[in-house]
């Protein structure tokens, strides 16, 4: 049992949106029976639930180390952001899915258990709890969870939805780099990958961007991400090729050209790098809020 949903705004109405309670296309029960079980110790449902989904994603999990990463002794619980951060530390891409049962079902169908935040108390006396959905049975209207000290907790769907709603319908999956969510929101996926890259997990980010390029061919953000990670990994030739590919269709994507300049600089081609920045500065108005950035880049590259 543990705490903290942050400032979740809760609604008081009793019914559930069709979108939330629908099983989607699910006709038969689905259950990921082989999902590992980490019985929680007192208050430590955060580490236990995270260990469960990390293990399912193929990561090496040590519950004790995980507890140190996500458990806040003073508050007897874990924060969602820490679960996300700890997943990144395990070279995984944490992705917050839509707060609907059909999104959960889609992930289960793809073989991924879903970590959820529940409030087992009431709004004015919350008892926050993290658990992992491993199965859904539309025939008996039941949700199957790894929860607390129970290896296989079976809860009526309606009861679960009430506790989940009080947890803000928060749910996440842990993606091995290269896997795409079952029902991906493109921008949210890219944000998740960008966070992995920003926290220094470059190999994982690189694989995840490539999966994005495969899923959404020609998408500017995905290509930009791939080039960015390639550069960070020192794969300059590839970074250059991808930035140039991107600029061939979107010549005005100034951030890409700015970064191309740095890729050229890294390869000892300073004159070419400065030419790219000059190209930008020739096309950007004096009042543009981003002009200063490229002026800084010019000075920066010229000074190196």
């Amino acid at each position, binding site marked *: 049992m543990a705490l903290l949903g942050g*400032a979740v705004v809760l609604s008081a109405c009793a019914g559930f949106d069709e979108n939330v309670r629908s099983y989607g296309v699910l006709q038969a029960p689905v259950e990921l029976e082989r999902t590992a079980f980490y019985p929680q110790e007192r208050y430590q449902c955060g580490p236990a639930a995270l260990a469960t989904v990390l293990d399912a994603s193929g990561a090496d999990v040590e519950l004790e180390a995980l507890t140190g990463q996500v458990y806040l002794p003073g508050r007897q619980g874990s924060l969602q952001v820490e679960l996300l951060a700890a997943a990144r530390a395990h070279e995984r891409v944490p992705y917050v899915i839509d707060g609907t049962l059909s999104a959960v079902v889609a992930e289960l169908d793809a073989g991924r258990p879903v970590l959820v935040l529940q409030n087992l108390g009431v709004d004015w006396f919350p008892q926050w709890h993290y658990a992992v959905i491993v199965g859904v049975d539309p025939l008996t209207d039941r949700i199957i969870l790894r929860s607390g000290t129970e290896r296989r907790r079976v809860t009526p769907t309606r009861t679960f939805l009430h506790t989940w709603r009080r947890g803000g319908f928060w749910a996440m999956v842990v993606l091995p780099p290269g896997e795409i969510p079952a029902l991906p929101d493109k921008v949210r996926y*890219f944000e998740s990958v960008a966070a992995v*890259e920003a926290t220094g997990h470059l190999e994982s980010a690189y694989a995840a961007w490539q999966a994005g390029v495969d899923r959404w061919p020609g998408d500017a953000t995905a290509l*930009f991400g791939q080039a960015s990670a390639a550069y960070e990994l020192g794969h300059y030739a590839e970074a250059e090729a991808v930035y140039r590919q991107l600029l061939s269709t979107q010549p005005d994507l100034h951030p890409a050209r700015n970064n191309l300049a740095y890729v050229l600089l890294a390869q000892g081609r300073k004159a070419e790098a400065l030419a790219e920045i000059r190209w930008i500065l020739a096309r950007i108005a004096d009042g543009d809020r981003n002009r200063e*950035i490229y002026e*800084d880049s010019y000075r920066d590259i010229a000074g190196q």
Partner: protein
Amino acid sequence: MTLSHLTRVVARTVAVAIVAVGFAPYAGAAVISPQELIQDEVRAERVAGLVALLARSDVAQQLENYGVSADQVMERVDNMTDAEILALNNAIDQHVAGGDVLAIIGAVFLVLLILELVGVTNIFSSF
């Protein structure tokens, strides 16, 4: 708009503003990260949403009743930071669902007013 209604909007707005302090635009000279690129795209999307909202005839009419043109509001929006636009969007989202024009306009004005009053604009301005 009732007083308690106003209070709720204010509280929410301030909470959002505080949370959003962590975000900054491009952090000076160097390579631009995908995270920064996405923030830029998200900003463009939000601004487009606001433009669409202000283009609604009932909204524009109500603004006019207050003696403000949609252009004037957009001018303000253009000069807002990402965090401020997010605050504005969140405040509007709370009301657009119900479709109550007065509430939407109220939210717009309130956010602009609060940002002005508490000097958030100056705190956030990094350009």
